[in-house]
């Protein structure tokens, strides 16, 4: 049975012209057999052929297809860039989440640094110099000045002396 493989041979789907020529009986026998071999194994082409055979005027089919084609391309142009796959949405969501996280970390870092500075406004070497400039006679009055910016302490007795 050397011709056997052609029973299950998968061929390219029928073109509009092939279908129309078949419906209108314009094909030679060899081509008819090729079309029929294809529809024996392709349910879509088989259904389509059956449908097109029911058309009252087969000559109108190309025009109808052209109209649908026009509408489809108009819609495709209109939707250009609108359709995004789920994976693109996931990618964008992850990116936005990362950016938000970075912004959040930056905000809290700045917030805590400012809070520390407010809690210790006179901290640091500049403040020490200011205290000494104000009370030059009692340099020892500033017994302990925190340089960490948290607090500074002045001895009670020095306060009294001032």
């Amino acid at each position, binding site marked *: 049975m050397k011709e056997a493989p052609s029973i299950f041979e998968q061929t390219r789907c029928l073109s509009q012209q092939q279908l129309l020529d078949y419906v209108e009986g314009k094909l030679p026998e060899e081509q*008819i057999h090729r079309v029929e071999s294809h529809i024996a194994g392709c349910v*879509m082409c088989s*259904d*389509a052929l059956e449908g097109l055979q029911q058309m009252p005027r087969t000559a109108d089919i190309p025009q*109808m297809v052209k109209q649908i084609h026009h509408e489809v391309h108009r819609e*495709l142009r209109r939707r250009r860039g609108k359709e995004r796959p789920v994976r693109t949405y996931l990618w964008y969501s992850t990116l936005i989440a990362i950016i938000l996280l970075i912004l959040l970390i930056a905000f809290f870092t700045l917030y805590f640094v400012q809070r520390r500075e407010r809690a210790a406004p006179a901290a640091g070497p500049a403040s020490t110099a200011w205290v000494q400039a104000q009370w030059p006679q009692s340099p020892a009055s500033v017994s302990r000045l925190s340089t960490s910016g948290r607090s500074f302490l002045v001895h009670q007795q020095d306060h009294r002396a001032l």
Partner: protein
Amino acid sequence: MNPADASYWTDHELLEKYRDSYNNEWLGILLERYLHLVLGVCMKYLRNEEEARDGAQQICLKVIKILPRHEVTYFKSWLYQVAKNHCLMKLRQSHQIHILPLSDQQWEEQLEHSSEEAGLLEQESTYRYLRQAMDLLNEAQRRCLEKFYLEKLTYQKVAEVTGYTLMQVKSHIQNGRRNLRRIMERLVSEGAGDAGPDHSKKTHD
């Protein structure tokens, strides 16, 4: 690569290009390939020229809308199921039919079925069982298949030779081909060496 040069690309390649770039031009080429078939399918089920044209247009717009959300492997089979489902839904809405459209699971089953067929046919050993499988077909299907595939006759000629109507010939060839595949699958899975064909299991549809 330019979409204008894509006429010889396979559906799979075009689908991949569309998935990679989400450039609608690729989808346009794919749809254009099957527009006439979608129109024909709509005409078969809706039996009205105007409704078929509107239906085909709606199906294409639906495909444009839902394709990005579906993992489609076989575009043509998927498109056919979308088209058929749309038509059955229309008929159901107009109370002309009481068949439920196929669910997503049923679609997948059908698609798996077609891919299994391709897999089976890739096996060279499959053809060893063809003669045995032919013998297991019923008389009408075997005669029509032999006339059509071996003698290369057209449906019309097969009808003339066998005395069946054109519709019967078409049906015998399509059903015979399907049954032949099933029998061959069974023979392949059983293994030809284990046992000869079981002639009691002849097909009757």
